[in-house]
């Protein structure tokens, strides 16, 4: 079991990790989720005794890591797939680590076969792809057959087959009763791999719950309702009617309402009764990715100021997914010129509809391609305003994007 108690790390005036407390239990895969720069790697390094915490402590099996004389046989870690001397062969790299742990050379060949690198064992690591590097790093973590495993972003750079392999490996390791702690910045990946989630943002704990609970708490259906522009009293009227009927209406920055708790026909009826005209009434499903981004939105350190065609590329190849993504959810359909918005670089978490969201026509009549970035700003329920003011003006308008 890995335990962090009040773990804090400051670099000068900057706080990387703030009073983090959690437990990682054996027998399950625990996902460690957070945007880039949220303190995941720092936390992992502190657990491994590489960085010393400013305050608090991290223990593995109840003991701090650093005085542990048999570290390599009890704890295996993949921190950085590129942390290999490029001039050294995969086998020599693993052999040096095996010897460090007092393991026989035969174990090196075993793990090489396990990760599928036996054919390139004598090639120098310089020529390895990122995916091969990840496999080599995973092999290094598995060397000592440890009971506690930490993986920092293990699926980075892997192809779909590799991702599936890592996912099954993590599950298998956990099923064998090991403690498996996997970090990622991809909610969709964690939803498939992990059973338990620890979410951090800006070094602070945001959620610590089973994945199942996270999904049921965060992927509710909702309806977008739009009343005529410039008629705020109509909107207020409708919001009041919805509240009276037992629903919840939260305004979105562009003036639409995000309605939960009522079926679409009922909303239409309420509007009709209240004499409010509707410009839009559409069903939506908040994806897990969206929920995660809303949660961490105020806590994203490195956000692009304005997104556009020149914005950073989307991470990985896996678009935002629905609550229970069926394998690899599709990104924008091929041939559609819509640039995939980087969900971590953009303040608009609703950049793309999940696979279950209905097709989104452009609200103003201009033909919007299926899967185009949603023209409206991020949904902001009452009372959940992120600390950083929503960067509404920077939300790309579809015309600007294209």
């Amino acid at each position, binding site marked *: 079991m890995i335990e962090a108690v009040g773990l804090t790390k400051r670099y000068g005036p900057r706080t990387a990790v703030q009073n983090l407390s959690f437990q990682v239990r054996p027998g399950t895969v625990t996902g460690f989720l957070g945007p880039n720069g949220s303190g995941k790697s720092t936390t992992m390094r502190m657990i491994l005794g590489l960085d010393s915490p400013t305050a608090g402590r991290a223990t593995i099996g109840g003991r701090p890591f650093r005085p542990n004389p048999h570290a390599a046989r009890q704890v295996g870690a993949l921190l950085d797939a590129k*942390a290999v001397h490029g001039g050294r062969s995969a086998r020599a790299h693993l052999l*040096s680590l095996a010897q460090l*742990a007092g393991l026989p050379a035969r174990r090196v060949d075993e793990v090489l076969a396990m990760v599928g690198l036996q054919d390139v064992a004598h090639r120098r690591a310089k020529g390895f792809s990122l995916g091969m590097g990840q496999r080599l790093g995973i092999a290094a973590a598995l060397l000592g057959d440890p009971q506690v495993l930490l993986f920092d972003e293990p699926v980075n750079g892997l192809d779909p087959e590799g991702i599936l392999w890592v996912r099954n490996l993590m599950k298998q390791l956990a099923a064998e009763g090991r403690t498996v702690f996997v970090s990622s910045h991809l909610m969709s990946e964690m939803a498939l791999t992990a059973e338990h989630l620890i979410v951090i943002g800006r070094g602070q704990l945001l959620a610590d719950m089973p994945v199942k609970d996270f999904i049921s708490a965060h992927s509710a259906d909702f309806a977008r309702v739009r009343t005529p522009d410039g008629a705020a009293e109509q909107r207020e009227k409708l919001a009041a009617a919805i509240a009276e009927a037992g629903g919840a209406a939260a305004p979105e920055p562009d003036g639409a309402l995000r309605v939960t708790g009522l079926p679409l026909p009922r909303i239409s009826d309420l509007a009709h009764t209240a004499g409010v005209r509707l410009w839009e009434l559409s069903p939506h499903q908040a994806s897990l990715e969206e929920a995660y981004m809303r949660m961490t939105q105020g806590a994203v350190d490195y956000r692009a100021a304005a997104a556009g065609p020149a914005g950073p590329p989307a991470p990985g190849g896996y678009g935002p997914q629905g609550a229970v993504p069926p394998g690899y959810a599709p990104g924008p359909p091929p041939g559609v010129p819509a640039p995939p918005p980087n969900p971590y670089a953009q303040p608009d978490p609703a950049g793309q509809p999940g696979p279950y969201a209905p097709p989104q026509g452009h609200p103003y009549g201009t033909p919007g391609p299926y899967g185009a970035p949603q023209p409206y700003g991020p949904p902001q329920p009452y009372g959940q305003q992120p600390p950083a003011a929503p960067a509404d003006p920077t939300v790309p308008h579809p015309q600007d994007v294209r």
Partner: protein
Amino acid sequence: MAVVGQVLRSEWTKIRSVRSTVWTLATAVVVTVAVGVLICTLARKDFGSMPDERRLAFDPTNTSFAGMGLGQLAMIVFGVLVVTNEYSTGMIRTSLAAVPQRGVFLFCKLLVATALVFAVGLATSFAAFFAGQAALGAHRAHLGDPGVLRAVVGGGLYMTMIALFSMAVAAMLRSPMLSLGILMPFFFLISNILGNVSATRKVGRYLPDQAGSKIMQVVAPVNDETPYGPWGGFAIMAAWTAAALVGGYVLLNKRDA
């Protein structure tokens, strides 16, 4: 301690599985011997035209080590790379996650590298001596002459100590570029300048390379006022190295990896 044996084996695997080891050490051998032979050949041709004073002070043994000044630079590169490879690749985190006892890790690494450098340095020193003496012809020294064996073994010790000092400095600085950028000009230029300007000579001779190279002398130069002998000089060099090692150890132990 079982851990020590494990780390030593691991470090030996690391050292022999990268090409920079062979390249740097081979360069050290070739440059030291070749430059030594060249200078010895020139000295033999020059000997007839030397003033008596210089003939008296002619040190055939030390002349065959004339290539040390250049060859030691390759040793410095080797020492720096052995340590900074861990940092520039990020391997240090994997290593320290496997061996959390950082002192054990550092000293095993340095021990393996130092042992290798000593073997290569000693071989270089003997090769440079014999090749150089052969080139000197009639003016040669013999291994059995007083002080000569000490000077030749000292040549190997000097190279070893230079490499170890470089490793210790690199352990403090962590960056290969920074370490080489400080060590190379220091030993190639600054030390020589300080040692040859009369105002700074008194200070310059306490620098590690100048003090250490005293061990390779058999005949004292003219007007030599060095206040220490061959072993005294080597002790000064060892003290520098020890200080750097303490610094490297303290920083490694304290710093985040």
